[in-house]
């Protein structure tokens, strides 16, 4: 029964990792951009929510009404003003520019908020749990987060396969030059894409900050977890990302069950093993 419990907790933990990964996966899938600042943008969302929550007295989840548009605008501006300029020049420019953005966000937050750990308070839902036979107790909050991850992936599926915007996204992903010839304004489309990626990043940032303490240096490990979920699931596969997150979560739960200090390390080791055994992930779609 203990192992079943570990398995369930780990799978649910995968929900937040899948949410971390969606933004990264989107920007890679559409514009082949690997955003090193992704983790810092997750943490930045949490800080925006913190400021809004303190300013308005709203609870963090209600703050999303403000945080989501703010992060969409930031993503749009970041892509339009900065990252679009890096897309034609090979591997180094996007990597190093987003690397620079990452350091600027981290140190900007450090200067603005100090190195203190922060936490968003959502109230009773954080500790509520459901009891099942066999002594298994599952937190309500992880179930909610997992549900949000399912909803997010479902809505992306609808966006990609049922709307004109989604068709344009798929077109530039397959062949950016030809899409442009067909009348797609790639630069604007990329800006919208990063904006949409930031919507999911904002949701992920707020949901994670309700559960976990964060500080200005909390971004890089979120980037690594998102990246591991994406690679395990297979590049470009949305539902694969969810499974990747779940596998990562289960590996971490098993590690934590052995010894609490093993949690993160067990996830990394599972990732490296999958990388060696199946370098293209479990459900590869995009060819790099």
């Amino acid at each position, binding site marked *: 029964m203990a192992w079943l419990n570990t398995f369930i907790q780990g799978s649910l933990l995968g929900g937040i990792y899948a949410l971390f990964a969606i933004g990264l996966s989107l920007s890679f899938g559409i514009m082949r951009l690997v955003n090193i600042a992704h983790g810092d943008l997750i943490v930045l969302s949490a800080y925006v929510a913190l400021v809004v929550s303190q300013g308005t007295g709203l609870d963090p989840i209600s703050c999303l009404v403000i945080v989501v548009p703010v992060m969409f605008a930031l993503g749009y501006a970041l892509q339009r003003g900065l990252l679009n300029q890096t897309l034609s020049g090979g591997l180094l420019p996007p990597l*190093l520019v987003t690397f620079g953005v990452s350091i600027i966000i981290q140190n900007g937050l450090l200067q603005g908020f100090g190195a203190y750990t922060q936490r968003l308070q959502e109230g009773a839902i954080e500790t509520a749990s459901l009891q099942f036979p066999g002594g298994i107790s599952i937190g309500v909050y992880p179930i909610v987060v997992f549900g949000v991850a399912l909803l997010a992936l479902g809505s992306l599926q609808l966006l990609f396969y049922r709307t004109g915007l989604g068709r344009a996204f798929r077109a530039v992903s397959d062949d950016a030059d030809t899409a442009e010839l067909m009348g797609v304004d790639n630069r604007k489309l990329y800006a919208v894409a990063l904006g949409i990626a930031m919507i999911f990043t904002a949701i992920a940032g707020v949901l994670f900050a309700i559960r976990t303490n964060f500080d200005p240096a909390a971004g890089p490990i979120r980037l690594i977890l998102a990246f591991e979920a994406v690679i395990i699931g297979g590049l470009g596969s949305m539902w694969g990302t969810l499974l990747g997150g779940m596998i990562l979560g289960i590996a971490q739960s098993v590690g934590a069950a052995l010894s609490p200090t093993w949690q993160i390390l067990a996830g990394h080791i599972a990732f490296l093993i999958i990388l060696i055994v199946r370098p293209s992930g479990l459900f590869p779609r995009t060819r790099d």
Partner: protein
Amino acid sequence: METDRVERGTRASRIFAVVAVVMLAVLVAMPWWGDAGEMRLVAEMAYYLALAQLWNLLAGYAGLVSVGQQAYVGLGGYALFYLTGALNMNVYLALLIAGPFAGLLSIPVSIAVFRLRGAYFAIGTWVVSEVFALSASLIAVLGAGSGLSLTPAIVREIAPDRAGREAILYLMTLAISVLVFGIVYLLLRSRHGLALTAIRDSEPASASLGVNTFRTKFIIYVVTAACTGLVGGLIFLQKLRVSPEAGFSINDWTVVVIFMVVIGGIGTLEGPFVGMLVFIFLRELLADYGSYYLILMGIIAIAVMLKAPSGIWGWIAQRYDLQLFPVGRRLALAPSGDVSKP
């Protein structure tokens, strides 16, 4: 009669070689004219320069953009402390082993990370470094989360008094920095260097001309790891303490190094010098303002990447056709009286 020949140096490079030797002699004499603070700063510049040259070799020449080189800095530091502390090894012998030890561990690492391309390679190397850091924080003989310190007996082994110790560590840092530079320079002038330059310019084209791109990259990765481990051992010999956080710090050993190389000029040997000087200058200038110097470095690096991707040195080299450390080959045509020949 003169014939066409391949030139490997330029007039500027020969003049600069003399200047460089004089400058180096002045720095070697520093224990006799400088104070301890100045020596520490120059030593720091020397090891940052070595790290920057090594990262530049990896990313600028071999196209292996790693953000996980802190793994080898930490491994070098831990190897030194473990060998001297737990096994009572002589400190100089331990330092000599630290480099090859890091190089040896980089071989299994390369099996995993070489499966990833481009930016994914970058993050993969980072994960590996995290694995090393987390492992070090779990292993009891490595001091777990709090790390290891050098015992006073080992410190006295370097030199009995403080001034002597500072002079010896300073000279060792200088020597290793020159050694690392020498290795990178000679490697780039060798046939591996030619292969590397070809890979940097076009991997498929060089592969089709018979360059074994995998083997070349593998050799560079292992050599770089070994040298980074050696520098790491030296860094923590000066700091006298190593912990998982300090040893495997991405900010200290990789982020600032990347900024130096990018700002100075990636893919040139002169660039890391320029970038290191810019970094140290900004840091000393903004020393009283917390981490603003890092924000400024980030902004400058972004601006350089977008507006002048070849960096400060690349811009100078292009404008004045200047090469201080030439690694290429130029064809010098023999003077000929026959002007009708093209």
